[in-house]
Each structure stands twice: as C-alpha cells, then as structure tokens.
C-alpha cells in the first residue's frame, strides 16, 4: 500500500520542544486522518533542529466509500420536516428518496453513497489545518506572513505513493524537495519515498532520527574518552538536549585548564552543562573530574575540529574564570555576615510571608520546638539555622542557583564551622527526590524538618495549598520529605502540636506583612498552652477525624483558624504517609484502620500497621477478624433495630448472668486479654498486644458456635451483647477493625 512522507522544514526549533512536537504531530495527524475515514496503523515521526516530520506506511490510496441509509419523515409529513430531511441527507428533491413501508406506515429513506476521497486530497486539506493549529509552547510570526510557527517555516515536503502532493499554507509551498545540512549540503534535494529521504539526507549530512543521533553521540564520546584513559560522565538529559542541537553530530574532546580543578566540582560540571552543553569527563581511577570536556559540533570541520575544540576550550576558560572570580570573592568573608543577613532581609520569600530572613527566624523557633523530640545541640542548631540561607546571596549561587546548600557547606567548612553545622547547611534541603539521601545527623535532621514544616505551615496559613496537579511551591515534596525523615530516624513527634505551631507562625507573619505592625505571635500562645490540660484535650480531639474546633480556650477567631488549618495540614502529612506505606506494599485498609485511631505519631502509626499486617497473616489473626466482624455485625443490627443503645453498651458484664460455658470462657479470656493488650499498647509493644488478642480467637469461635446471642431472656441477651461490645473495644485498642476488608 502507498506510503506518506511529510517533512516540515523550518529555522532552528528549540531542542527542548522537538520530542514533544513529534508526539503532537502524530496525534493530530492520526485524529484528522481518522475523521476523514483513514485509520493508519502506525505513524512514525522524526525531528531535528530544522525539521519535524512523519512517515505512514500502508495508507490506502483513498478513504473507504460511505454507504448509509438515512431514515426520514413519514410520507405526507409537513413540508418543513421534509425540507429539513432533504438538507440533512444532501438530496435535491424528495424524488431522490425511496419510500419504505413498515408497520406504522410509509416513510422516506435516503440512500447515501459517497465515494471515498483520494488520500492525497485529504492530506492536502488536513496538513494546513494541523500547521495552523499546532500546539507549540510559543509560536511566532515572521516578515509579512500571517502563519504562526515555532520559528519561520520554509517548506513542506510531502510525498504520497511516490508523487509530490501540493500543499500551501500562507505562502509556504510544498514540493518533493528538501535541503540537507546547512553548510555541508545547501543545495535542494529531491526525494521519492521515506527510505529515499533518509538515505539522501544521510548523504547530505543530516540524520533525521533522534535515537540514531543519540547513539552516535554516546558511542563517539565514550570512544574519545576511552582512547585517553578517561571516562564520560553520562547525562541523559543533556544527551537529549544536545541531540536536538545537531543534525550531523561530530563529537570532540576538548582540554580544560587543569588549574580550574580546585573549583568545587559541581561548579565545573554546571558551567559545562548549563552554559556550554558539554559533557564532563572523569578519571576512572580517582572518579574525580578530569581537565577535559566533550562537546558535540554540528559540522565536520576542515581541520578535523581542532579550531572548534580550541575555541570551546577558550570559552570554557572564560566561564570558569568568572566562576573563580565569584568563588574567590565568596571565600573572602565568613558565610554569615551582617551584610549577607541584610541582603536576605531584602529577598522576598513570598509576598504574604515576608523575607527569606523572616523565614530563617521562623525556622529557628521551630528547631526549638523540634529539639523537644530530637536530641540536637541547641547552640550548634541555632548556628546552622543562621547560616542555612546565607549562600543564597553569594556570587556563585547567584550564578548557579542549583548549588544552593552545597556552596554554603563548603564556605562553612573553609571558615572552620562545626562539621555537623556545615553538613546541615547542605542537607536541610534534602531529600529533594525519591532517590535522594535522607538526613540522619541530628542537626541536619532538625533543620531539614524545621525548614519543611515552616514552608508547609506558612503556605497553609495563607491558603496556598497544593490543588490537583498545581503545586507551585513543591509542598507535596516537602511533606513527603518530612515524613521520610521522621520515619528513617524514628522520631517521635507530637505532630498535631507542631503543625498548629507552624501554621500559627505563618498566620503571625502574614498578619505582620499585611498590617505592617507586629502582631501578637499566635504560635507563642500555642506553645505556652501546650502543657495545659485544655491543650491536651484539644490535641486528642484534633486527631479525631470527626473533630470540631474545641470550645473554651481556643474559641477565639484566629485561634480557631490556626487550629483548623493545623488539623488540615496534619491530615495532609498523614496522606503522604499513607502514600508512602502503600508504595511499600502495605494494604491500604490496614493503614486506614490505624489512622482511624487518630494517632499523630507517625512512627507509632507505622509500628501498628506493621504489627497488624503480621497478625492478620496468621490463622489466629484471620479468624479473630472474622469473629470481630460477626460481633460487629450483630451489634450494628441490634443498634439499627433500636434494640441496643450506646447507653446500655457502657454497662459491665454481669458475671452471675453468664450461663453457657462458652460465654464464661470468653468473659474469662477477655478479662485477661483486654488488660494485657492495653498494657502492651501502652508500652508500644504492638506485637505483644496482638499476641494477647490472639488468645481470644478460640473462645470467640466457641462462643459463636455454642451461644445464641439473641436469647429470649432479656438479661441473658443484654449480658451477651455487652460481652460482644467488650470484644469490639478490646480490638479497637490496636486498630479500627471495621476498616479492614475481608474476613
């Protein structure tokens, strides 16, 4: 079957847009062809700096014929209905319709037969539509043309079944012609098919396939390095970008002045990558950067690339000279200076949340709260907080924002700060991604937690929470990072209190920024209340999912707002934990069952989930769950019928009314298991708690086998329902079993 080749030839398309453009082109083409009655099985695409194209094999020469019957109005229907039918069926007069009889009478039927249109004609029609509506991230006009394209479009090469197809879009014409490499082969080239296009362009020093260009770059780069006993620092993102900057990759190894190797390695690597698009090279023995780089040119130079390599080396030296100037300037002063602090006071963290230095001060307060739960030296921690953002106003971070933290650490080390303090400056941003290291040194841990908690609390305070896919301040990442640090270091936090304090600080600063006056610090009120009974009650209530803002002490408007936002933030953090546990393969219903208890200690929650998971995998556990479900169902049914109320459920089991041996045995087992389970929960030995509960399994099974709960004798019945209520309570000490699925 015939083949379609389409190539849109333009001035240089930004590298980052090419891959996506291939996908969009294939999608739009597929949709339009389908709408025209053609369904290509597969659309292959290609792109380079100057071209975007596609090839479809096996496209029929014309679209399928259309044969359809269109039912019209009854014979004798009003003229208006008949006219409408003629119009919709495309008939000139009603004589062209047939009359068909059925049970209800005679009606008109139009037989529509349309020959399928020629594919070339369809392509002529849809390509201009696609070109005009192409979803480039940014497009432009050029000269006097009305056409919008990513950069000026010069030609459309369209060949169908070996023939050129004439297409015109706003003055840009088509032909079987394209052009090769800008400098090596500037003459027009005529192509007859997709294979011809690939091979003629290859002859004209253009490789249209991205994958081929990437493969060649990588092979050449590795070979160049290997020949000198070096090793390429591979970089997939850079490879993708570089392959979008060349049509004919020629890889060259350049020399870097070895004197620059005393700059921080990251500075060199970033200079190479972001500014120059070079690959870094290292010494395989030491794993340290070697004084070389790999650049990918777009030309086979007459001198074998000597001038290009030398030129690039000079440009890199100029760049690194700049970096060295910055680094030398930065090194002259200690990391913390009053001048740097004053600069941080001028940088806006967020319009409603004050400056970066305001954030530093809030973080310092929070590290004080966190040190109630993590043992870290107070002075060292406060020092680390003061230093934590100072590198943001260094020259080098101004030039390379990606190096925030790393430059701060290096400057701290140079100026003799404590090692733990220096490490915390770099690590407080961690973990930045799923594969990133989680801080474990005490000062780093406290600072990293405080920094994240502050961002979360503040943005919660001003209602800038993540919504759907929009998360401009990366708060999900902060929350997940927070949870990971807590779990990895087994830190026991009173999270309900901490989230409320963090939100309280956010509310205070936003009030300050808005009114210009210093407001009473709401967080301080919370801190001072933290030890009181009212606050303990509040925390307990807060952690219940159905809780409402508490009465009494926390009734005032602002305090209510803080508490309700704090609770919302706590729920958000709990959600991150759920996601984390689910990712580890923990059953989501078990997670829910433990969350329903309203605990705010993430470490304890995980311990409960793990114990529960292990318990339910045992036979005792599975059977006890079945017993629980049965008990709960009976109680629920009685409650629904109004025959059992919460008031009645608070009574004690009357030992004298235990008639059957099986119910005596259950009561006996409960009276031992319940205190044992509670005591184990108290000392957080959840495995022991489960074990205590597992002693209930046999008595519960026997109870349901031998004892009729709904006895005729009201007293017996009441006593038995009480027994089941106690059973339900006993299990609730470790989890809300009603949330657990299965039996």
């Amino acid at each position, binding site marked *: 079957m015939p083949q379609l080749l389409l190539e849109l030839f333009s*001035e*240089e398309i*930004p*590298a*980052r847009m090419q891959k996506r453009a291939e996908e969009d082109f294939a999608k739009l083409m597929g949709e339009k062809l389908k709408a025209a009655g053609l369904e290509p099985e597969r659309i292959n695409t290609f792109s380079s*700096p100057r071209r975007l194209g596609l090839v479809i094999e096996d496209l029929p020469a014309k679209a399928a014929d259309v044969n359809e019957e269109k039912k019209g109005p009854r014979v004798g229907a009003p003229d208006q209905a008949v006219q409408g039918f003629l119009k919709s069926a495309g008939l000139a007069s009603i004589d062209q319709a047939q009359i068909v009889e059925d049970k209800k009478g005679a009606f008109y039927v139009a037989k529509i037969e349309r020959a399928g249109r020629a594919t070339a004609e369809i392509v002529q029609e849809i390509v201009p539509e696609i070109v005009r509506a192409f979803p480039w991230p*940014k*497009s*432009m*006009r*050029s*000269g*006097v043309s009305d056409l919008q394209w*990513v*950069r*000026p479009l*010069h030609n459309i090469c369209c060949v169908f079944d070996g023939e050129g197809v004439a297409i015109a879009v706003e003055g840009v014409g088509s032909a079987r012609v394209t052009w090769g490499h*800008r*400098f*090596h082969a500037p003459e027009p080239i005529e192509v007859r098919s997709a294979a011809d296009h690939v091979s003629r362009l290859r002859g004209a020093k253009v490789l249209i396939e991205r994958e081929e260009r990437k493969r060649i770059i990588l092979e050449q780069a590795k070979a160049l390095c290997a020949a000198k006993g070096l090793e390429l620092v591979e970089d997939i993102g850079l490879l993708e970008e570089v392959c979008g*900057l*060349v049509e004919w990759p020629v890889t060259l190894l350049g020399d870097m002045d070895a004197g620059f190797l005393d700059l921080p390695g990251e500075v060199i690597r970033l200079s190479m990558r972001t500014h*120059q*698009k*070079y690959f870094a090279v290292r010494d395989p023995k030491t794993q340290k950067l070697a004084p070389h780089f790999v*650049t990918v*040119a*777009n*030309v086979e*130079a*007459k*001198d074998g690339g000597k*001038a*290009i390599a*030398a*030129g*690039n080396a*000079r*440009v*890199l*030296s*100029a760049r690194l*000279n*700049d970096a060295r*100037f910055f680094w030398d300037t930065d090194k002259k002063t200690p990391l913390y200076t009053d001048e740097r602090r004053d600069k941080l006071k*001028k*940088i*806006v963290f967020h319009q409603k949340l004050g400056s970066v230095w305001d954030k530093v001060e809030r973080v310092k307060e929070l590290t004080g709260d966190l040190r109630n739960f993590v043992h870290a030296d107070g002075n060292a921690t406060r020092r680390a907080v003061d230093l934590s953002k100072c590198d943001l106003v260094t020259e080098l971070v101004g030039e390379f924002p990606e190096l925030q933290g790393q430059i701060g650490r290096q400057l701290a080390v140079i100026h003799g700060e404590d090692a733990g303090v220096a490490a915390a400056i770099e690590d407080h941003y961690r973990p930045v991604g799923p594969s990133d290291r989680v801080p474990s040194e005490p000062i780093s841990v406290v600072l990293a937690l405080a920094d994240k908690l502050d961002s979360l609390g503040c943005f919660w305070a001003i209602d800038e929470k993540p919504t759907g896919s929009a998360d401009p301040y990366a708060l999900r990442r902060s929350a997940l990072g927070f949870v990971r640090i807590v779990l990895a270091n087994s830190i026991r936090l009173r999270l309900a209190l901490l989230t409320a304090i963090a939100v309280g600080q956010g509310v205070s600063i936003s009030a300050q920024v808005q009114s210009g006056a210093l407001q009473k610090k709401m967080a301080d009120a919370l801190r001072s209340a933290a030890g009181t009974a009212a606050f303990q009650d509040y925390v307990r209530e807060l952690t219940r999912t159905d809780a409402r803002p508490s009465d009494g002490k926390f009734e005032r408007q602002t305090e209510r707002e803080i508490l309700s936002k704090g609770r919302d933030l706590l729920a958000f953090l709990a959600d991150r934990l759920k996601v984390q546990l689910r990712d580890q393969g923990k059953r989501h219903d078990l997670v829910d069952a433990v969350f329903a208890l309203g605990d705010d200690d993430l470490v304890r929650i995980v311990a409960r989930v793990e114990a529960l998971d292990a318990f339910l995998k045992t036979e005792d556990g599975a059977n006890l769950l079945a017993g629980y479900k049965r008990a709960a169902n009976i109680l629920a049914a009685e409650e629904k019928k109004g025959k059992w109320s919460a008031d009645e459920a608070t009574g004690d089991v009357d030992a004298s009314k235990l008639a059957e041996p099986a119910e005596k045995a259950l009561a006996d087992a409960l009276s031992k298991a319940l205190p044992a389970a509670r005591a184990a929960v108290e000392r957080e030995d959840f495995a022991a708690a489960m074990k205590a509960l597992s002693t209930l399994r046999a008595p519960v099974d026997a109870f349901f086998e031998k004892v009729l709960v709904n006895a005729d004798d009201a007293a017996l019945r009441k006593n038995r329902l009480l027994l089941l209520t106690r059973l339900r309570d006993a299990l609730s000490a470790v989890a809300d079993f009603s949330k657990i699925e299965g039996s």
Partner: protein
Amino acid sequence: MAPDKAPRCFQDVILTLQTYWAEQGCAILQPYDEQVGAGTLHPATTLRALGPKHWRAAYVQPSRRPKDGRYGENPNRLQHYYQFQVILKPNPPDLQQLYLNSLVRIGIDPLLHDIRFVEDDWENPTVGAWGLGWEVWCDGMEVSQYTYFQQVGGLDVRPVSGELTYGLERLAMYVFGVDRVYDLPFNDPDSATPLTYGDIFLENERQQSRFNFELSDPEQNLRWFNDAEATAKRLLGEGAVLPAFDYTLKASHLFNLLDARGVVSPTERQSFIARVRDLAKGCASAWEKLETAQ
C-alpha cells in the same frame, strides 16, 4: 565566499559589518546620543519596529550597563561596550543566510567553525518588548542575538522585524584570539600609532565603575528619575513622541544607576520597571498611531 581582506582589528569588524549591511540596503546610522543599556533602545529599532512602514537600518550603539562595571579588572565584563545593531522590517525570508554571510565576511568560516542557533527568547521588560529567536554560537561562544520581534511597547508588531545584535568586543576577541578585551587591537596594529581597546577605554572603565558604584548620588538620581518621568508624560500629552522617548531613555538609565548602587529593593525594582514600561508603552502607541496615519 572567502572575504577579500580579513579584518585585523576591532574597527575593521565594525567597518566590515557596516559595508556588508549597507550592501543589503540598510541605512547606516550613527549611535544615538542618549545613554542606553542596549542597541535595541535606539529609536531606529524600538520605534521603527512599530507600524506598517518598511525599514532597514544598521548602526553601532555604545551600551551602558552600570552594574556590569568591574573597574577594568575583569577580562570580559565592561560597563560600556559596543553593540552592532541591524533591523530589517519586514525580515526577508533569507535573513538567516544574510546573517551567516556577514559572519563569513568578518572571517568566520562555517566549515571550520561550529555555528549553531540555540534557543533564546529575547525580552526587554522595561520597554514591553519580546521576540523569539536564538543566541548564535560560534564554537560555544555567543556571538550574536537573533530575534524576530513580536511585541514592542506591549503592541503586536506587523510586519515583523528581524533584529540582529552583534556583541562587538566578544566577537572581535573571538576572531582575533584575544583573551582580555583590553588587549584587542583597536586600529591597524601595523599603523604608526597602534592603539588597543585598553588604550582607549581602560581608564574609562576604572573611573566609570567608581562612579557607578561609589560616586553617583542616589538621591539626586531618584529626583532626576521622577523629573524625567514627569517630563516624558508631559511631552506625550503634547504629542511630542520623540522627545518623550528621549526622556524615557533618560529615566531608564537613571534607574540602572540607582540599581547599581544597590538601593533598589526587589519590590521597588518591579515598580521602577513598570514606570519605565508605562512611558515606553505610551511612546510606542503614540508612534504607531502616527506611522499608521501617514
């Protein structure tokens, strides 16, 4: 394609580019006599890009960036340097080729060097202008900015102009293999009085850097900024667009001087930029009306 006589000094590069673009039908203008931060701000580009009339011009423009001063100590950075500016309106379809030919003329052989068009969308928020294009790389060195103007003064431009900016010092340093700008030969190195770029500009960089960072008077400059703004508005009210534009340029440069002294906070910065942009927009729309009416 090889040039008859390859340039040997800084001024040869300028003369060669002027001759080349004159051959392409450009009016060769002289620098604008206001202090500006970039060649684009010359009315021959900013204003002439607006309206329906065709236009071709090329010129050298001294550009002042007070913040970039390095007291003559940095081999690459200058607070006063030269740009060579070309504007073709509408841009001819073969503008890229015309541009590449100009590089050949100053001695850059595209089969010996690696010339690349790398995405770089140009924007000048103080005059509400933006366009799409590239920075042009020669062996990894940015030698020009190439832009298709889309908006100026917040107005869509039709037809579209192609704008080329050559960073002359950088380009010359590259062509002559010089690592320190002050070592560039300015005139013919074999002439009776050979002069380097440093002979002409080193002392200027030292003194002007001192002025920009230490001696300028922020309070006075703030007053002058307010006065320049008020005058530009008054002139716009009188329909005197070109004088109003001069005062807009003065305001823009005064803002740069204030910025160099570090007395502009990030929030104020936005408001200063917005004030200059409002003036530029006023000039742009008044100029466009004038051009369209004629």
